[in-house]
């Protein structure tokens, strides 16, 4: 079974702090994704990565950056946390089969509160 883990289930940070959210998958998946989930808005893509050291912006990248130094690990960074970044953050990964859209496997999520 594919396992996607995230470093924290709950996190409370202060405005202006630098925040790191880590995601690790154990199935050698090529693609990894970071979403934020807000009530009434569904899941919105922040960043994604198709390969090590490769990243592309999603729909809402402002205020975020990412790092993928190893294939299994994809980190989301909030450079200076703000209250409007209070949200549930979900990480996902997919195999990356050419010519098809694979199932995404999700982590348990990190509920981040910025005060």
């Amino acid at each position: 079974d594919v396992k996607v883990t995230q470093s924290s289930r709950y996190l409370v940070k202060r405005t202006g702090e630098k925040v790191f959210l880590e995601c690790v998958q154990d199935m050698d998946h090529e693609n990894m994704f970071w979403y934020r989930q807000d009530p009434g808005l569904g899941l919105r893509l922040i960043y994604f990565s198709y390969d090590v050291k490769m990243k592309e912006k999603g729909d809402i990248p402002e205020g975020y950056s990412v790092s993928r130094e190893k294939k299994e690990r994809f980190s989301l960074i909030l450079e200076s946390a703000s209250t409007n970044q209070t949200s549930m953050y979900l990480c996902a990964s997919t195999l990356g089969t050419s010519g098809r859209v694979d199932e995404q496997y999700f982590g348990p999520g990190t509920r981040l509160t910025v005060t």
Partner: protein
Amino acid sequence: AQTVTQSQPEMSVQEAETVTLSCTYDTSESNYYLFWYKQPPSRQMILVIRQEAYKQQNATENRFSVNFQKAAKSFSLKISDSQLGDTAMYFCAYGGATNKLIFGTGTLLAVQP
């Protein structure tokens, strides 16, 4: 740009009954995939069912089936013999040429005993 619309924010069904969740999408692509994901309370999101657009036959997985109407761009999920464990947020998602998924806003389904 592709869009996914779920017009039912919340639904309720009695245990053992059947419920249908609606999803419509918009796209100009000819080859794509559609998904239903389930997010139980405080648990991980998991795939319920997947449909490939070029397949005319509706996908089924045990008590879960879809009604895929390609011309109408409709992709509804039917849950038969509803169980308490089906209580969850359900998301419809579209995947096309970019390999990214576009999600709807979700439908919160409550199964009542």
